[in-house]
């Protein structure tokens, strides 16, 4: 059975009837998209127009002043860079560890395998609130509070469990005969992993990459506790600072929100198909 839900396998019978489909679709599109659109509209309004009653649906004088403020008069560019460094670092590390672990789980039988696999799953279910205090103390002892490495490590472990599960189900879906043929030819396990398994599971690897990157990019609470110095703060923290000041500059906040959301939305759009397929496979099967 394929791990990816296929477009072609879906049903072709009209069941709900056109009026219901049309109404439902319109509702879904409006509910899901409107806050994002309103964010965009608010970000190009002049200050005066943001605080107008009744609100205007479209700005009279669209302006990029809020973006100028965010890009040239705030710490947001620095936080953007920090976010990229931390997301890339932790995603890369999580991916490497997950590839090896998933290969071990998918292709070998060993003592205690079920137990170790459940341990990985429990890692996914642990409540943040229960581990944040000791994690903070551990990082402090290791001198990793307010460092890139601290956040990279923390994010790596957050994304590792689901990454391992997603990749394990992907690796299992690859016909084992291909690897057996290579063993007969005398290839080592590592060679098989890199020459056969990895190229064949590229969509799964993409899915893990996107999942880990988005999770890291969006994370707020750990960053709030472990990065209190502006040299390592990430975008979510920068955004929260914008909006918790006594007098919130909503135009700038909406512009900063756009700056933070657009890259992740583009990444998602490009890899959407792999991402959704890999996630459903990882979260519901395994």
């Amino acid at each position, binding site marked *: 059975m394929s791990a990816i*839900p296929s477009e072609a396998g879906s049903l072709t019978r009209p069941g709900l009837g056109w009026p219901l489909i049309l109404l439902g679709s319109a509702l879904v599109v409006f509910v899901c998209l409107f806050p994002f659109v309103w964010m965009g509209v608010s970000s190009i309004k002049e200050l005066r127009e943001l605080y107008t009653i009744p609100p205007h649906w479209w700005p009279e004088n669209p302006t990029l002043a809020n973006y100028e403020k965010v890009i040239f008069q705030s710490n947001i560019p620095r936080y953007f860079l920090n976010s990229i460094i931390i997301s890339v670092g932790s995603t890369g590390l999580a991916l490497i560890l997950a590839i090896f672990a998933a290969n071990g789980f998918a292709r070998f039988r060993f003592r205690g395998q079920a137990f170790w696999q459940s341990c990985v799953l429990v890692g996914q279910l642990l409540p943040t609130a229960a581990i944040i205090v000791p994690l903070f103390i551990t990082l402090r002892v290791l001198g990793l509070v307010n460092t890139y490495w601290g956040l990279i490590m923390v994010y790596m472990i957050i994304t590792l469990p689901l990454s391992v599960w997603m990749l394990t189900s992907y690796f299992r879906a690859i016909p084992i005969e291909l690897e057996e043929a290579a063993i007969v030819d005398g290839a080592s396990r590592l060679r098989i992993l890199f020459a056969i398994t990895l190229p064949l599971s590229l969509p799964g690897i993409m899915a893990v990459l996107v999942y880990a990157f988005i999770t890291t990019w969006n994370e707020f609470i750990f960053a709030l506790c472990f990065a209190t110095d502006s040299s390592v703060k990430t975008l979510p923290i920068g955004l929260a600072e914008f909006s918790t000041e006594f007098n919130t500059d909503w135009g700038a906040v909406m512009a900063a929100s756009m700056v933070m959301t657009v890259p992740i939305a583009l990444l998602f759009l490009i890899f959407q198909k792999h991402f959704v397929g890999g996630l459903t496979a990882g979260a519901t099967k395994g």
Partner: protein
Amino acid sequence: MRSNAGLVFALPALVVLFMLIAYPVVYTGWLSVTDDQGNLVGLKNFSAVLRPRVTTQALWNTLWWVAGSIVFQVLLGVATAILLNQNFPGRALVRSVALVPWIIPGIVAATTWAWMFHTEFGIINYMMTGVGILPEPIGWLTRGDTVLPAMIAINVWKLFPFVAIMVLAALQSIPNDLYEAARMDGANYWGEIRHVMLPQIRPVVTAVTLLLVIWGLNAITIIYAITRGGPANRTLITPIQIFRLAFEAVEFNQAAALSVLFFAVVMVVVFVYIRLLADRAGEGT
């Protein structure tokens, strides 16, 4: 093949998970029975953290938050999945758009909705008074009786797409024979939903609900960013209480005691749920 090479491959990931997950959990247990000098104090931290009325209030808030979120997340998610399982032009587009809330970072969702819920300049009050649902604008985020429902609405908006994707994947793997059999028995589309789709997606809905319970119990971002648990603790859920105890009051040991209790509850939920899943699988449906 049977060899310990598999364990060798998995070892680095397991070691990392152990160091940064298992160790903190054990360490939390230790912190919960000591004071800030490291002396054993028995259950003093537990009684200190359980006594105030705010702890009970936070527990109730957490229950409302999780239960309220999940009911709507699952209902809307399943309904959306059934809609997206239809074949109609533009389906792919609707499907992509439906994922937007899930991709938007939690903090961005929180700030954007806070702006939309704004009492004077918010678009929600404007739209609702405009069509006559509300006679006058209300202070969604400042009133005690609307603030938690508002938070739940944001959480539902954020996560129902996730339910929809998962259920959609399950719907697409239902064999056509089942529908044909149902139609032979004279079922219309609603009958198919009831007798074919819902039973078939039940395992996925169960699994996803477990994830939603865990995420709900974990969720801090939306509430913390908008209200920090206020006004008057009306949105204070237990994870936020732990967070504030640790990082605002700097009572690490009491925070650890509350974490231990919280962790125990979460593990009970997980255990009951896994048992439930296993029992259902045993029914042979």
